[in-house]
């Protein structure tokens, strides 16, 4: 009797570990890794979804940590010239992490720095730095 119970428990644990296990582990690992991120911006050519989100709000005087992830098939870039922030080239499937502290409130354009599609010039968004 107790032997079958032990067997049942072991099978249940094994099955859960191999099905729900990877899902829970991946989500937990990712959330622990991104706890200090201010925002993540996905990069795609404009006709495939553009930056998302395209509008990001941060507080002035506080450290900002952005992760720009290229989920497209072509190379993109990411720069906020007014804040002297530039990620350079971000290849397909790669990502860049940018850290900076905006000193002045205001609205700042960010855009793609690589000619990625015929709509490349529309690949842009706004970072708003609020006074608090």
């Amino acid at each position: 009797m107790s032997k079958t119970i032990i067997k049942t428990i072991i099978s249940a644990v094994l099955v859960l570990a191999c099905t729900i296990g990877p899902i829970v582990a991946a989500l937990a690992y990712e959330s622990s890794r991104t706890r200090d991120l201010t925002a993540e911006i996905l990069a795609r050519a404009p006709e495939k979804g553009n930056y998302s989100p395209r509008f990001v709000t941060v507080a002035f005087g506080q450290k900002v940590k952005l992760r720009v992830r290229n989920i497209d098939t072509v190379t993109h870039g990411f720069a906020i010239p007014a804040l002297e922030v530039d990620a350079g080239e971000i290849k397909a499937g790669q990502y860049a992490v940018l850290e900076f502290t905006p000193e002045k409130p205001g609205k700042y354009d960010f855009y793609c720095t690589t000619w990625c599609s015929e709509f490349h010039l529309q690949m842009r968004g706004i970072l708003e730095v609020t006074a608090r």
Partner: protein
Amino acid sequence: MSEQNSKNQRLLGLFPLNWRFDLASLPGVRWLLKQRWFPMIVILINMFIFIVILMSGIMGGFSSGNYSFGIMFVWILWWVLLMMLLVPVLSRTWCMMCPLPSFGEWLQRLRIFGVNNKLGGLNLKWPRRLSNMWVMNFLFLGTTFFSGFFTVKPLVTFYLLGGIIVMGIVLSLIFEKRSFCLYVCPVSGFQGLYANMAMTEIRVKDPNICAKHKKKTCETGNKKGYGCPWLLEPHSLKRNTYCGMCLECFKTCPFDNMAFNIRPPGTDLLVNEKRGLDEAWKSFIMIAIAIMFYVAMMGPWGWIKDWVRGNTLTGWLKFISVHTAFALVIIPGIFFVFSFLSKLFSGSKEVRLKAVFVNLSYCLIPMGLASWIAFSFGFLLPNGSYILHILSDPFALGWDLFGTANIPWTPVATGWLVPLQFITLFAGYLVAADYGYKLSLQTYTDPAAAKRGFIPLLVLLTLVVIAFGWLYGG
């Protein structure tokens, strides 16, 4: 009759076709195969991997193929392993460890490791008219319509695998045992067909013991295991095609009469059991797809790529129609012409043309398999290094689990690619010709007629290998 003349036959005049070695006679192997937790434990490990693949389809880079765990694992690793190692050497060993139908099977059994021969679900019989490869033929061909998306859009791979899993669960609740695997799973058909070439088999050791065993527990099941989930009669198994190598018969046989044999490749091609047009067409479809994949993926024709990738709907529809016609009509048509010539040359009156057509089609199996192996080299060598990257960063989230995330793309031994492909194709050609002759002999029985009937077949095989050589050699 066919049994007799295959008794002393040799492959390429060298290896005796009736040579066997039972791996389960090695110490420890039979013990392992009889354990209830084997192969279930391997299935669970693969389930883990497939869950990660499914997750990467919805989490990771949505469109960057080379950096997608799902795409790389499924299409570079899994597919290549299937074609190069699992099927040609180990028969349907993939089905032994496949996690795709497990949820359905668990629901039927309400057990994971244990035995419960009172299976749940509706347990209906699969329709007899569909108890062949046709459903799989069409599903597989249909799947290749989307081949232009599989390697670029992780989400498409997600839908494909997810679809197989869901279908497996639904059909397992309606139909008995592994009906889904036997007659529906798109991965099943080509494994079944090409497993005829495999160098392993599960067979009975001594048929006399089975003859005396009235209960036939391998069919009905007992406390030790399930009655054959693949609806076979393990005691009289003759061909690999529908054997999923689940190992239940090793567990249920009270006399340890099952063997896991090593054998010369391709001996099943000569076994005349359940041969039919369905399997012939499977052969044609596989060859057509090998050609189409090569042309679309490695060929220099940009406009074909555009069609296959579905850049425009009309282009994609054109691709589907051309591809379908090629696989279902043109290639079979060419083969029909040569079968007709074979019968004509043989001078035989009694043998029916359909028998010639069906029997001889089995010599396309070594040729087709070789073309797939050659094609897989073209995938593996240039792209294999991506595997290291995606292992460390499976969801394209910037992880570096094993420190290999930033390994640059390094094509391996690409200088060897074309020579390897040529050697593979040539080996396939030799084996195909050898079995072609044996099949001709089996069909016409009279050796002189068989020789004459073999000539058109040899011409066809030569044309096929030249065509593939031209295609792959550029």
